[in-house]
């Protein structure tokens, strides 16, 4: 019994949230039972992800699982290498505190009991889709999971009762469907020239045959880049992000900014490196496009974040800037660069969730949304503001926090590949990040507080904030095995094994 569960663990991690999500609607009246189920499934998912990651780390060979027993080119294959284990850990680890934060906290933002159950259903669907994106090795499976994730993200954004939520969700739906259509077109072009949908087989066939049809390969590249760029808010295509992430309820903003955007970036990473391969990327100069797009995104996102007055919109524009770092790292085709990309992805997921949850707690307790009204909160809500401060320090890249290790590896990677401009841009980006986050911390701690009754949020919310903030610090001080996992994943992406 135990052995059959552990051999089938790759598929359980994906389908358990999906199937549990559907039975939650039938007992929507008993909210305690629903919340207990959700947290139980999340903790089980974290355990499963941990077992898989330890397995892959120790044995150092990828786990291959064939759905339905059909072997590779005929069936759907799930391949858990170092990259999949890495992202599974990130998704599982961030989902647990965010769902702990959402317990008891949702009724005033979302509505009655049925709407809260609907929120949890969409939340579990998103978690299952993200886990699936980490493990899959089949191109059409990527499309199906991308669609599941898009629809649940739109549902989460529109779950609030305000009119801005419906408008933001509509814009997000139209742009995200545009992105999915382009991704499907890209998958179509790859299928037309290679005839395979499995990533490994498509790679071999593509590298044998691309000389016959270079234009189709070029079209596939551009469709994939623009399609995934729309969905992960690359700079000129980021228009939906500020409205959507500031109109969603705070646990939804945390999981959207922290995990959902990263899932699409991991899919792009897989397709660029496992299907096309780094030689084809350098042949078509795609890596230069990625470096350029990342550079522009960092500078533009940070400058736009400086102009925002509302707290959640400022954090949303900060996500646009940080996605620029990850895209910049994707264009550096060496081990240090890709290690920096992956580690920065993980650390940003944890940090952005902390920041959004702390901001949500502040807005729920005080009712104030703008930055210049937050004077003196540091003394009234100490734990919330401490978590926010740790998140800001981590995002800026101060040593001893997790953002520094990611940025350091990115700088080493760009030195190795010979560009100097990314180094300057990374440093300028960190300075701008400090410029738009530290004034909030200063106003909160060093200004006198008005005589209001603001308290810290409840018990489960405090545990969630403490978990995430301590993860930021622990990743910064002892990155050891996690950084090793990221390095092995980078070597695996570059096919250097």
């Amino acid at each position: 019994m135990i052995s059959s569960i552990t051999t089938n663990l790759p598929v359980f991690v994906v389908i358990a949230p999906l199937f549990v999500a559907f039975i939650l609607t039938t007992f929507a009246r008993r909210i305690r039972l629903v919340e207990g189920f959700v947290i139980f499934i999340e903790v089980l998912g974290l355990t499963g992800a941990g077992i898989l990651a330890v397995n892959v780390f120790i044995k150092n060979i990828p786990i291959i699982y064939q759905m339905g027993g059909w072997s590779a080119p005929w069936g759907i294959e799930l391949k858990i290498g170092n990259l999949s284990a890495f992202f599974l850990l990130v998704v599982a680890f961030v989902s647990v505190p965010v769902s702990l934060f959402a317990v008891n906290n949702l009724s005033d933002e979302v509505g009655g009991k049925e709407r809260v159950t609907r929120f949890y259903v969409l939340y579990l669907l998103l978690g299952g889709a993200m886990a699936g994106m980490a493990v899959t090795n089949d191109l059409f499976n990527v499309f199906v999971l991308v669609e599941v994730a898009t629809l649940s993200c739109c549902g989460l954004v529109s779950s609030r009762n305000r009119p801005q939520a419906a408008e933001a969700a509509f814009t997000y739906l139209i742009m995200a469907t545009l992105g999915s259509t382009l991704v499907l077109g890209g998958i179509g072009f790859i299928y037309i020239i290679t005839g395979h949908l499995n990533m490994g087989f498509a790679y071999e066939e593509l590298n044998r045959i691309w000389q016959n049809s270079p234009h189709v390969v070029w079209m596939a590249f551009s469709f994939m880049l623009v399609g995934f760029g729309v969905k992960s808010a690359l700079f000129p295509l980021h228009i939906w992000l500020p409205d959507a992430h500031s109109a969603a309820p705070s646990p939804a903003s945390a999981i959207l900014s922290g995990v959902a955007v990263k899932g699409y970036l991991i899919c792009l990473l897989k397709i660029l490196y496992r299907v096309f391969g780094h030689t084809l990327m350098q042949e078509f100069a795609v890596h230069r496009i990625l470096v350029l797009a990342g550079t522009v995104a960092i500078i533009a996102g940070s400058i736009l974040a400086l102009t925002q007055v509302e707290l959640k919109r400022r954090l949303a524009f900060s996500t646009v800037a940080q996605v620029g770092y990850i895209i910049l790292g994707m264009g550096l085709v060496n081990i240090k660069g890709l290690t920096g990309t992956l580690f920065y992805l993980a650390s940003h997921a944890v940090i952005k969730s902390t920041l959004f949850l702390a901001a949500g707690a502040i807005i729920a307790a005080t009712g104030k949304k703008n930055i210049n009204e937050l004077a003196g909160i540091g003394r009234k809500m100490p734990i919330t503001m401490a978590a926010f401060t740790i998140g800001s320090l981590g995002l800026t890249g101060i040593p001893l926090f997790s953002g520094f290790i990611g940025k350091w590896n990115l700088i080493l990677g760009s030195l190795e590949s010979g560009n100097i401009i990314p180094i300057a841009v990374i440093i300028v980006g960190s300075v701008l990040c400090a410029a738009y986050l530290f004034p909030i911390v200063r106003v909160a701690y060093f200004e006198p507080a008005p005589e209001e009754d603001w308290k810290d949020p409840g018990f489960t919310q405090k545990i969630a904030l403490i978990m995430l903030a301590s993860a930021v610090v622990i990743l910064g001080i002892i990155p050891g095995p996690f950084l090793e996992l990221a390095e092995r994943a980078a070597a695996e992406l570059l096919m250097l094994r």
Partner: protein
Amino acid sequence: MSILLEKLIINYPYSIAVVLFIIGALTVLTRSSLFKKLLGINIMETAVFLIFIAAGNIRGGTEPILSEGNPGTVYINPLPSALMLTGIVVSVSVTAFALALIIRLHRTYGTTDANCIAQMRKEVIDR
């Protein structure tokens, strides 16, 4: 030039798919009514389905059902059609969700025109 025209006419499904895609994209970008944007998305998705299904077609092939015939019959590829069934399901779900959102917006703002809604939101923010 005539070779280009000849290739375009031989591969007519792909040319029609490109034209449909451009029509769909222009509808989403330029029309201001929310219903028309939704229809534009549907047309774009139909164009991509056409590319896939046309790729599976082999001229002179028969339908892919095994029957007692000579062993040299050429069957067309059934895989893209099966994949596009999933795509059609996704398209129906997106359409249903977007229609529900349009109804909610209509209840709040009284109009289904994107420019009017943006105008009303700007007035609320300015006040």
